């Protein structure tokens, strides 16, 4: 019995020791920047940047292989945050600022094929086979993937209307600069 116990213990110790040494030699250095960049991205995996998902885009950003302007759902705020994190100048010249949008199903054209439902990354499309679909505007993040797959072009992107619920004070840096003498109109006074 002692031989059995002793030999198993010895084998365990030797193999464990070997693995410990191997783990030190084969340690993978993971770039901590990747994780931080991923935090800055929206995380809805829409794929509009051309990468499979947000983590792949973050990896490419960390290596410096991708421009920081590729994320449409993130918009200007994300570009600026990425520029700050990576220490590069944010080149906003080819960035067209869009107002926040959500998808909308034109009900006359919808044939109920469910293709857009499969494409939606935020589960914002409601509907069933051969029944009309509709979009839950509150959770739609405007990635416009459903627009591309719709065979009848029944989905359009519409600007989110400004209502009492969606209106907010403009952020200081994005607000138009008030002209002299019109301060009260811009809400600064």
């Amino acid at each position, binding site marked *: 019995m002692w031989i059995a116990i002793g030999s198993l213990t010895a084998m365990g110790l030797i193999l464990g020791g070997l693995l410990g040494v191997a783990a030190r030699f*084969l340690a993978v250095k993971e770039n901590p920047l990747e994780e931080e960049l991923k935090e800055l991205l929206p995380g809805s995996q829409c794929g509009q940047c051309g990468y499979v998902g947000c983590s792949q885009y973050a990896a490419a950003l960390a290596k410096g292989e991708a421009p920081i302007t590729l994320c449409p759902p993130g918009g200007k705020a994300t570009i600026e945050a990425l520029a700050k994190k990576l220490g590069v100048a944010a080149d906003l010249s080819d960035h067209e600022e869009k107002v926040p949008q959500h998808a909308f199903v034109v009900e006359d054209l919808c044939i109920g094929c469910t293709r857009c439902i499969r494409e939606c990354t935020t589960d914002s499309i409601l509907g069933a086979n051969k029944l009309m679909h509709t979009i839950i505007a509150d959770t739609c993040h405007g990635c416009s993937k459903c627009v591309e797959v719709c065979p009848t072009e029944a989905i359009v992107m519409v600007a989110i209307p400004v209502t009492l619920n969606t209106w907010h004070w403009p952020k200081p840096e994005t607000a138009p600069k008030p002209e002299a003498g019109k301060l009260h109109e811009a809400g600064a006074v």
Partner: protein
Amino acid sequence: MKEYALLIISAALVNNVILARFLGLCSFMGVTTRIDTAVGMGMATTFVITVSSMADWAVGTYLLEPYGLWYLRTVTFILVIAAAVQFTELTVKKVSPPLFQMLGIYLPLITTNCAVLGIAILLVEHKMNFISATVFGFASSVGYSLVMVMFAGLRERLALADIPRLFAGPPSGFIVASLLALAFMGFSGMAAS
């Protein structure tokens, strides 16, 4: 030399691990949806089986046999296999992160792949010498990889084929696997088991 050639053909084709001995069926159905994952899995398993068959031969011959510890063979073999798998996992993670992500849970699951333990027990029970044991382990795992890659290719075609809805996916996969096993029966009689 002729003896080893026969051993290789016997282990890789005639008594193929998957299609004749029916070992390692979990990964056979699990990671054969794409050829490149099947190739990666085949290479990882080949490494594990070859290393563990050498180590298990040494453990069986110098420890279990002389001290009459035969009843401990499953535990000790699994211990050696688990260490080899851990080492493989570290290496794959270092060398090829995409492959590491594609294999996912199936990489640590090589530990419980019965093909690995089955080959170790077979080579100890047949009382092979060291070179035959190594050749046997390597040839068996080459047979395993071969069948994995072939089946992955078939399944890639199957995924595009127009199959009645009842049989689409795994059911047609199982039927094709049985046909492949039938085809491999054609090798029987080419070499003594």
